[in-house]
């Protein structure tokens, strides 16, 4: 009986295993293979060593996405909190409104922002000004915030709405002022939501290439643009090496962040 169960289980898991191998493990192996070979296919460290040239691009990508993530957090946390505290039927409406822009393709949204903010675009003709917005770092950060904000709000909302309402009363009864309730109870309890929100905004903004191409006006490059161009021009090996280093960097930062969540949850119990 038990054995039959495990056979059933492995049959049920087979498609997932197959999927993971075909679309996750295998591509990873291919990336690693290309990263460590030269264009003739023989083993080489040259791609990895040449990455030092890309350090400024890595740094700029990281900087812009850190700023964008921070802005998302500042805007997203209160938003998530307000939604979570609203009446249940209102909550559905708010969430739908938040998701509504995401029903439109990201590329189209970004292109529209470009058309609106452009030098001769909608905004400038409406205000009759000549603001130069597209082509600046600010425009790219704006694009990242606009495109990825829902990814920050949703996990925080889920987390905050799960917090027992009695917590607030209990904290007030024990003498906390509203601000203290927020900083000592609600905020620590929603850390896991914040961490996953930050992850979900930071990772796509570091590796974005479309937003920076359209809103950055192409005068500077983010690492996503660099990777894209390597592959388009057929420099597969360098492209693979950059992708590999990207993955490792993201993995490291995620594991660091996850350590904070664990210890934080431990802290809440105490």
């Amino acid at each position: 009986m038990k054995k039959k169960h495990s056979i059933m289980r492995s049959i049920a898991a087979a498609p997932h295993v197959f999927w993971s191998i075909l679309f996750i493990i295998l591509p990873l192996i291919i990336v690693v293979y290309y990263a460590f070979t030269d264009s003739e296919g023989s083993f080489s460290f040259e791609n990895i060593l040449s990455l030092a040239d890309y350090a400024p691009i890595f740094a700029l990508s990281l900087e812009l996405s850190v700023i964008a993530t921070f802005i998302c957090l500042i805007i997203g946390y209160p938003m998530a909190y307000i939604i979570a505290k609203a009446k249940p039927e209102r909550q559905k409406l708010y969430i739908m409104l938040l998701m509504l822009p995401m029903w439109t393709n990201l590329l189209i949204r970004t292109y529209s922002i470009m058309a609106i903010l452009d030098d001769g675009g909608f905004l400038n003709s409406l205000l009759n000004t000549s603001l130069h917005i597209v082509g600046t770092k600010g425009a790219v950060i704006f694009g990242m915030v606009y495109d990825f904000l829902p990814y920050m709000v949703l996990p925080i909302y889920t987390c905050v709405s799960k917090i027992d309402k009695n917590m607030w009363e209990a904290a007030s009864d024990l003498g906390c002022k509203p601000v203290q309730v927020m900083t000592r109870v609600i905020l620590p309890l929603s850390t896991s939501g914040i961490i996953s929100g930050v992850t979900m905004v930071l990772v796509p903004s570091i590796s974005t290439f479309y937003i920076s191409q359209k809103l950055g006006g192409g005068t500077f490059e983010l690492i996503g643009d660099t990777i894209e161009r390597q592959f388009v021009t057929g420099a597969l090996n360098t492209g693979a090496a950059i992708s590999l280093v990207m993955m490792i960097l993201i993995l490291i930062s995620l594991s660091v962040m996850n350590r904070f969540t664990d210890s934080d949850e431990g802290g809440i119990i105490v």
Partner: protein
Amino acid sequence: MTKKSILAIIFAAVLVFSLFSCSDEGEDGGNNFNGKVVTLNVYNWGEYISDGFEGALDSNAAFEEYFNTTLAEKYGFRVEVNYTTYATNEDMYSKIKNGGGSFDVIVPSDYMIEKMINEDMLLEFNPEELPNFVNIDDAFKGEGAVYDPGNRHSVPYTYGMLGVIYNEALVDKEDYADGSWALLWNQKYKGKILQFNNPRDAFGSAMYFLNLDVNSNSLDVWTAARNKLAEQKPLVQGYVNDEIFNKMTTASAAVAPYFAGDFLIMASQNDDLSFYYPKEGTNYFVDAMCIPKTAKNPDIAKEYINFMLSEEAAVANALYVGYASPNKVVVESEDYREGMAELHEDWYEILYGVSPAEANVNYSYSPIYKSFTPEIQSHVNTLWESLKTENSTELWVHIASITIIVAVVALASYSVFIKKKRSRHYRMRDREIAKARAGLKK
């Protein structure tokens, strides 16, 4: 059996039957020829063939009709065109090279044709076999096809030249009057100049300007072009590709390099736009129809190419695409002349008034791009990156991001510190309680 599984079986049965009935339909129509239908796989650029929009000819459907009514008997089967598109030569190349699909007709650009010939990927054939090949202008035949001398692998489909588009309302006459690449380097139009966001065309503009060989194998030549682009960078509003359409028609930018055929479309949306071929020389490209070696139906592919050279199809395609046509019949066609005149009154001057040879009299090298060696390719990539990273960071970005990182790290370590302190406090308290209990027991 549960209800669900019965439903599932019914669904599966319906699906299987619908599959069969589909193929039945295909066979019914062709009962004259034992129902045999052959699929011709055509792989072309996006927006590169007349698709029947607004009553124009649908070239692919027209070919099917032509073939199935006049040639089906000869070949013994009917044909169905499976038309797919690509966005870059490189996409198409890698798909065919890696066996990502079998295609019968493809339309690569000159340098890609050369590369594919060198790699033995294209079928060799005699274009004179195609009755309509006589329609092709002699300038594109024989030695005229520098990428494929004698047209042994390719039949020209479109051609075009790179020029400078400018907005008459925003650019002073004395600056564009001499028709030079220098307009793209003019300090006066700082922040109003666009440049290509791909290394080949961007470097190209600098190299034609400096009279350098666009196919040079010398690293120094490319470095010189890069320095010229670096000189231009502070003036550039953006490095863009297809956004040029939007930015030029809305007058967000005043000057941009782009292709003549695309200029006609932009000009039909904004009357202020004008165009010239730079006097120093400029890029000239040919896109031509080829048959890959892996093609399953090379004979049908030749019929298809021949049909696209016919007046009916060639005129419709040339009107739709907007680039110059190497087909003599097209330029003489009344329909074509009328259609183009609706786009721009000087369409003829712009597309055909200057031949590639005339436009490049002052240029010392071949204006056609050839494929890069891997060494040059990687050098150009590196130069392009160095151009993009030059002066690309601003102080406030550093300050803001470093402040955030420092704040987050400080907050995190503070909370870790507080927790450690708290847990030490509790541990000590526990120990004291345990001690007290032990004392009580005694």
